[in-house]
């Protein structure tokens, strides 16, 4: 047998090997799972947007809290003046009688 015939034999033998009949199904299944995985993956800009909005909410909360504190500091207090309650003018008037 010549060397060329040996080579042809090996190549022919390999050419006769058939792939698994379910190979296309396997490929489609892998494609499906990869697509599902990609769909589940949250894009970086979304993660960034969520982090930024959380930060904003915290800052707004702190801001609102500060406003409330400063308002309570400026609230008017009630001073009770006893002289006004007693109606001293009346007694004074009595003295002139």
């Amino acid at each position, binding site marked *: 047998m010549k*060397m*060329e015939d*040996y*080579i042809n034999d*090996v*190549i022919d*033998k*390999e*050419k006769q*090997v058939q*792939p*698994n009949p379910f*190979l*296309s199904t*396997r*490929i*489609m299944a*892998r*494609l499906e799972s*990869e697509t599902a995985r990609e769909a589940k993956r949250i894009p970086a800009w979304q993660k960034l947007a969520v982090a930024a909005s959380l930060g904003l909410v915290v800052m707004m909360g702190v801001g609102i809290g500060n406003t409330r504190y400063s308002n309570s500091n400026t609230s008017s207090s009630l001073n009770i003046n006893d002289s006004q309650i007693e109606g001293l003018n009346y007694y004074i008037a009595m003295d002139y009688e």
Partner: protein
Amino acid sequence: MSNEINAQNRMSDEQLIEQILSGNKETFRLLVEKYQQQVFRIAMGYVHSKEDAEDIVQEVFIQVYRSLNSFQGKSEFSTWLYRITMNTSLNSLNKRHKLFSGLAENLKNIFNRSDDEKTAQQQMVESEMEQAIKKAIDQLSDKQRMAFVLSRYEDLSQRKVAEIMETTEGAVEQLLQRAKKNLQNKLNKLVGN
């Protein structure tokens, strides 16, 4: 339903691609079924193992699906597919540990020998010769191997091989002649002629 399938089977590659790109994922299965044999044969020429070749076929079609929208139709779809197959096969070979695959192949040959009229010694000689030929093919330069596999495993014309390799027909002919000469030299040394 069966009429629809028949109509899909008659579709050209361009029509199939158009349908896939418009979101009809199931049409991709038709494209896979149409070309899986060709891709598998080329992969076999590189890895000489059914399981490894099937892995390459999977990789190739996943890559094709991902980059289908970048296919501009300047060349035939099959040419584009063959290029992806060649690149994937070469990358896969670079990643694999050849020692392990060679060892596995040898063990498989020892345990799976056909039980026909050949004597054990004949079988051993043939198996060794087969391994030597595969090894000699593997040792060809990338370009010679590419031309050799496309021409001998896939029976493509020199024009088509030149188109896939983006070279001239003359260059392909030269590559094939050199590949043949290199193979014969290596094997003759081994046999001791």
